[in-house]
């Protein structure tokens, strides 16, 4: 895991900063469900994009990996969407 972090330091830094930014946005807009839904969608799209670009840069992008990031992004969005819906 540490080797993985060292190998992809810049990409992981981008991901960690984005996670913190999204968490701060969630806290700032915690009383506005419409904004929270928009932030959740953006977060999921960002993550799918991050995964695809990261693997593309290393020439390791396959259809399976693209599907994996699409499905994880979708799952993350659905988990947030379910709670925000009620």
């Amino acid at each position, binding site marked *: 895991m540490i080797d993985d972090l060292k190998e992809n330091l810049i990409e992981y830094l981008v991901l960690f900063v984005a996670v913190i930014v999204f968490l701060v946005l*969630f*806290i700032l807009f915690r009383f506005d469900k419409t904004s*929270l839904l928009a932030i959740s969608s953006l977060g999921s799209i960002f993550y799918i994009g991050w995964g695809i670009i990261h693997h593309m840069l290393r020439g390791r992008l396959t259809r399976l990996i693209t599907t994996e990031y699409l499905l994880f992004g979708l799952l993350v969005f*659905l*988990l947030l969407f379910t709670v925000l819906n*009620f």
Partner: protein
Amino acid sequence: MELENTKKVNFWRKNVKAIEKYQFMHHFLPHEEEQTRSKFLSNGAILLYCIFVFAVTATFRFLPKLVPGVLGYASNITISDLLAQTNQKRSEKGLSPLRLNSTLSEAAKQKAYDMFENDYWAHISPDGVEPWDFILGQGYDYIYAGENLAKNFSTSKQVVEGWYNSPTHKSNLLGANYDEIGLAVVNGTLNGYETTLVVQMFGRPRDRTQVASVIEEEGLLEEISVQEEVTEPIMGTQITVNPKEVEPTLDVTKVSRSMSLTFGGFVGSLLALDVWYSKKKGIKKFTGHTFAHLTVLLMVIVSIWFVFRPGLIL
């Protein structure tokens, strides 16, 4: 070497159960030889989780239309707490407290009744009735008036915090032009969900000598604290004014949160197991980054657990 392999094959042949057990383990742990994640983390499994979560959410959306009142929102909201929280926010800003007025409270109650009876959630009813119509209808002659609405909240504190964090509702809450407040907490079925509506009305009477006194306010609060009015069902909906703790048949907030946290926790645990086991066994997999998935999933769990709260304001 060949002898050893033959021995191995013979062992597995004789121990079918051991093979099954070994294979079952890979539902949770990554596969050393196939260099894949656990079966429960495969793309197919993640797709199934997505379909399941979506199906449950869709069911929660459509079920109330078929069977109204089964799903709902638990609440424990009282007028005395709402009044105390509102006046605390005002005192923090150096503003005078608002007095609870019985006429404004009756107008707020009528507004809540109207929303339940006509199944809407808005400041202006589908027939064009405005908040001021309810206030004037009760004979409250005002110079300034305002209205805040809330639904699906669990506690009085959450309701006031919700209003306080919205600029337009905050300006009502901290309005220097208001002397009095009317509050209604009413439970019923709205759009198929059992919920508690909170209506907050503000006013300054034309004749300021008419502002409710402390004694009048105390009397009103005492009356409200012992009284729980239950109406006859109107179009199949029973409406309760000043309800005590409300527990619906199925609390939709609790169920949706629990489901998301369970799925998030389950997938998160499998990802953590994947990171640990792959490191231990030196398994190199040609997949996406497990640690990245885990980081994003943790953000989701933290948000659901600590940040997201139920309730809508208008």
